[in-house]
C-alpha cells in the first residue's frame, strides 16, 4: 500500500500510509482506538463505506499490479480474506455450511437441468470434505456439524477463520482483533494457526490490543497513531514497552499537566467499592475507587474495557452492584432519581440517545432535569398543588449558558437536533451545570466533535471545576485529552482499575496500564 490517504468529510483520518507485506509474512498492526487501523483495513478490503464517503487516495499494489476494489467481492476474488470483529455467520447453520457459504459445491439434478443452476442440489459430502480440509489447515478443531448458535464465542471465531482458509485463492488474511473474545488457551491455538498459515505462504495482517501476541507471532510490527504510521519495525527488535510508548506517545506533552493540583489531602467525596456493571460491550467487573473532593479525575482505557460502564452503572442506566458512597452516604444503585437527588450529575457519551431531547427546544433540554429533580424553573400555585413551568426563568438560564459556553444557535427556542455535534455537547454540559451538582460525571465529552469545539468543552469543564469547586470525573478514550485537564488519571483495563497515576506521569506508563489486563 502506498501513500494511502483518507478523509471523512474533511476530517483527515489517514495520512501517507505505506505498508509492504511479503508472501507468508505476518504483520502486526496496533494503535489506539481511532488511530485508523480499521479504516485502513476497510480500504484494503474494498468496503462500501469507503466508496460512499468519497473513496481514498493512493494506490494498493498486489503482486506488483495496481488494484482497486469496488466491493468486498472484488477483494475476495483477488485473494484477500477478512475476519471481522463482529461475527458474520448464520446462527442456524452448521459450521461446515457456514464455511462454504455461497461457494457450495453443487450437483446437477433433473429439476435444475430444466430450470437452471439455481436449483442444483448441494453436495453435502463435498461440503463436509472441504470444511474438514479448512479446519485441518487452521490447526484447531471445531466441530464441523455443530450449529453456530450453540457454539462458544471462540469457536465462532475459528469458524470464520476456517471459512477464509477454505478459499483456495487466499493470499492475504486480515484478522481484526480476533483474540478479543478468546480465552487464553484458544488465543494460543489461534497464534499457532497463524504461524501455520504463514508457513503455507499466506500473508496475515493481525490487529490486536494484546501486544505480547504481536511479538510472539508477527514478523513485523506497524504502529499507527492519529492516522499516521509512526513505526514500522521487525518484531524481534522491539518490546511491549516500546510499542505502547509509540501507541500513545505524542509530541504534545507541552499541554499536559498545565494546571495539575494535588488533592491527596482533600477528603474523599465518593468511594466506590466492588462495583460491577452489566453494560453490553463495556462490562465493569470489580472496580474500587476513591475520588477526592474538588479534583478532576480522569478515567481512561481502551474501548470495551469497561470505562464507560462505571458512570452508566452508578447513575442507574445499566444494571449494577457493589457499594457507592457519596459524602459518607450510600447511594442506591439502579435508580437514576436517587443519584440525581444526591446531587450527582451525568453527561452521557450517547449524546443523541440519552443526552438530548432532539425534537425539543434548547430551553427544554437545558432546564428539564433541574426542573424534574430540583423543582427549579417552576412557579407554584394553590400551595404547591400546581407546578407551572416558568418559561421566563427557563429562557434566562438557557440564554445564560448559550452565552457562557458560546453555543452557536439561532436562539434558545431552536431544536436540539439542528445543532452541530460540538454545540449539542455544550447543551449536554449546560444541562448538567443547571443541576448545580456537587459531583459530575462526564463521559466522552469530546467524542465526534472537532478540535476547536473540543478545546472549548474541556475549558468549560475545567472552569466549572475550578470556579465552583465541583468534583469532576471525566471518562475519555483519548489519553492526551485526559492529561490536559485532569489531576489524576485512573486507567481501566479488563473491567478493573489497572492503576491511578498523576496526570504528569509520562504517556508510556499509561500505555502500559492500558494493555496490562486486557482480556
Amino acid at each position: 500500500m502506498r501513500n494511502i490517504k483518507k478523509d471523512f468529510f474533511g476530517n483527515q483520518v489517514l495520512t501517507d500510509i505505506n505498508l509492504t507485506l511479503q508472501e507468508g509474512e505476518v504483520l502486526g498492526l496496533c494503535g489506539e482506538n481511532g488511530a485508523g487501523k480499521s479504516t485502513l483495513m476497510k480500504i484494503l478490503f474494498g468496503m462500501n463505506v469507503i466508496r460512499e464517503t468519497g473513496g481514498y487516495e493512493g494506490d494498493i499494489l498486489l503482486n506488483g499490479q495496481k488494484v482497486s476494489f469496488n466491493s468486498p467481492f472484488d477483494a475476495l476474488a483477488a485473494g484477500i480474506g477478512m475476519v471481522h470483529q463482529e461475527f458474520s455467520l448464520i446462527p442456524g447453520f452448521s459450521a461446515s455450511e457456514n464455511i462454504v457459504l455461497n461457494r457450495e459445491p453443487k450437483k446437477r439434478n433433473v429439476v435444475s437441468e430444466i430450470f437452471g443452476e439455481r436449483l442444483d442440489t448441494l453436495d453435502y459430502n463435498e461440503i463436509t470434505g472441504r470444511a474438514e480440509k479448512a479446519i485441518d489447515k487452521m490447526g484447531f478443531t471445531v466441530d464441523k456439524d455443530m450449529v453456530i448458535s450453540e457454539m462458544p464465542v471462540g469457536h465462532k471465531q475459528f469458524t470464520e477463520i476456517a471459512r477464509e482458509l477454505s478459499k483456495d485463492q487466499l493470499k492475504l488474511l486480515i484478522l481484526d482483533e480476533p483474540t478479543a473474545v478468546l480465552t487464553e488457551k484458544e488465543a494460543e491455538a489461534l497464534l499457532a494457526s497463524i504461524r501455520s498459515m504463514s508457513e503455507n505462504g499466506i500473508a496475515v495482517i493481525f490487529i490486536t490490543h494484546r501486544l505480547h501476541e504481536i511479538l510472539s507471532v508477527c514478523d513485523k510490527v506497524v504502529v499507527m497513531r492519529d492516522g499516521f504510521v509512526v513505526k514500522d519495525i521487525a518484531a524481534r527488535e522491539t518490546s511491549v514497552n516500546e510499542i505502547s510508548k509509540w501507541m500513545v506517545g505524542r509530541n504534545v506533552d507541552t499541554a499536559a499537566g498545565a494546571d495539575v493540583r494535588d488533592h491527596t489531602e482533600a477528603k474523599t467525596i465518593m468511594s466506590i467499592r466492588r462495583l460491577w456493571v452489566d453494560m453490553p460491550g463495556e462490562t465493569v467487573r470489580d472496580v474500587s475507587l476513591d475520588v477526592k473532593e474538588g479534583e478532576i479525575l480522569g478515567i481512561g482505557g481502551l474501548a470495551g474495557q469497561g470505562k464507560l460502564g462505571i458512570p452508566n452503572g452508578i447513575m442507574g442506566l445499566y444494571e449494577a452492584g457493589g457499594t457507592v458512597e457519596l459524602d459518607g452516604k450510600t447511594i442506591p444503585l439502579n435508580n437514576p432519581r436517587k443519584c440525581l437527588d444526591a446531587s450527582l450529575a451525568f453527561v452521557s457519551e450517547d449524546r443523541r440517545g440519552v443526552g438530548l431531547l432532539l425534537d425539543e427546544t434548547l430551553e427544554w433540554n437545558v432546564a428539564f432535569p433541574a426542573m424534574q429533580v430540583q423543582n427549579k424553573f417552576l412557579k407554584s400555585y394553590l400551595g404547591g398543588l400546581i407546578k407551572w413551568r416558568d418559561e421566563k426563568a427557563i429562557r434566562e438560564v438557557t440564554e445564560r449558558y448559550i452565552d457562557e459556553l458560546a453555543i452557536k444557535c439561532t436562539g434558545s427556542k431552536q431544536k436540539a437536533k439542528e445543532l452541530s455535534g460540538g454545540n449539542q455537547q455544550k447543551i449536554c454540559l449546560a444541562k448538567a451545570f443547571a443541576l448545580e451538582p456537587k459531583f459530575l460525571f462526564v463521559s466522552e465529552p469530546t467524542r465526534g466533535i472537532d478540535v476547536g469545539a473540543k478545546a472549548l468543552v474541556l475549558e468549560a469543564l475545567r472552569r466549572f471545576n475550578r470556579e465552583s469547586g465541583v468534583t469532576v470525573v471525566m471518562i475519555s478514550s483519548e489519553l492526551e485529552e485526559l492529561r490536559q485537564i485532569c489531576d489524576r488519571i485512573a486507567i481501566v483495563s479488563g473491567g478493573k482499575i489497572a492503576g491511578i497515576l498523576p496526570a504528569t506521569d509520562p504517556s508510556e506508563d499509561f500505555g502500559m496500564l492500558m494493555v496490562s489486563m486486557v482480556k
Partner: protein
Amino acid sequence: MYEPLDKSSLTLRERISGFVNSFGLPRLIIAAFLLVLYIAAPFVGAGFWIQISNTINRFSWNAIMVLAMVPMIHSGCGLNFGLPLGIISGLLGATLSIEFGFTGPMSFLMAILIATPIAILLGVVYGWLLNKIKGGEMMIATYVGFSSVSFMCMMWLLLPYHSPTMVWGFAGKGLRTTISLEGFYDKVLANFLQINIGTLSIPTGTLLFFALLAFAMWAFLHTKTGTAMTAVGSNPTFAKAAGVNVDKMRLLSVVLSTWLAAIGILVYEQGFGFIQLYMAPFYMALPAVSAILIGGASVNKASIANVIIGTFLFQGIVTMTPTVMNNMIHMDMSEVIRVVASQGMILYALTRKTEATK
C-alpha cells in the same frame, strides 16, 4: 451567539413552499376542499348558515374524543386506537346513571361521576399492558379496542339492567342497541346559553365544556408533570436519565386518555340524543385518530390547536359532503369521501413519522 435567519432574502417561491411545509400539504388540500364545499353550498340549495351550524354542532360532539388523543401522543404511546375502551367506560356510566333512576341534568353529572372510576380502572390495566409492549403500542391498542367492544357486546345482554327505558321490550332484559336520552341528558350542554341567529345556532354550553377541558389539558402540559410526559414521549432514555419514572408517566397518559374518551362519548350522546351500544364504539376510534392527524399532529407530537383545527376540518367534510355532493351529483358520495379522507390520513401519518405542524 445568535445567528438570526434573514427572512427578507427568501423568494416568493421559497415562501410559498415554506408555508406549505409548515402548514402541511394534506391539511392544506382538505382545508381547500372544505372551503370549496362551503362556497358551493348555497348554489346547490343547501343553506350556508345551516351548514355552518351543522359543522359546529358536530365539532362540539366530537372534539373531546379527539382531545383524548393528546396525552398518549405526548407520552410516546402513539395514537390511541384503543379509544373504544374509554368509550365503554362512558357508556357504562351513562347506562348505570339511567338505571339508578337519575333524570335530567343530574343524570349527566352522575354518568360522569360513575364513568370516572371505571375509566381510571380500565385505563390503569390498559396502560400496564401498553408498558409491557413498548414499541408496538398502536397495534396492541387496536386489538384492545376491538376486543373490549366484542366483550361488551355480550355484557350489554348479560348485565342485570332493568330500567324499562333501556331494556328490550319483549324479554325485559338485555340493553337495546339505541337508547333515547329524552328526559335524561339530551342536549343538556347544548341548550345551555344556546345562541340562535336566524338559521345559525351555536351550542354554546358544549363548546364551553370542550374549551374547559382543552384549557385543562393545555395547562396540564405546562406543569412539571406535563413537561415530564412530553419528554418521555420525545426521548424515554433522556427522561429516565433525568430521574423521571417513564412507566408511571405513560400509565398516567393512558388513564387520562381513557377518561377523556369516556367524557367524550357522554358529550357526544347529549348532542346526538341517543346512547348507541354494541358495535357503535367500534367505529369511534378511527375518526378521532384521523381528525387529530388532519389537524397537523404526528404520531408523537400534538397540540390543542391540532385538535381544534383537525376536528373542524374532519367534521366539516363529514357534514358538508352529503348535502353538497349529493345535491350536486345525486349520488351518495359522502361515505366514500369520508372513508378515503380518514383512512388515507391515518395511512399518510403512519408512513411518515416526521414533525407535527403548528
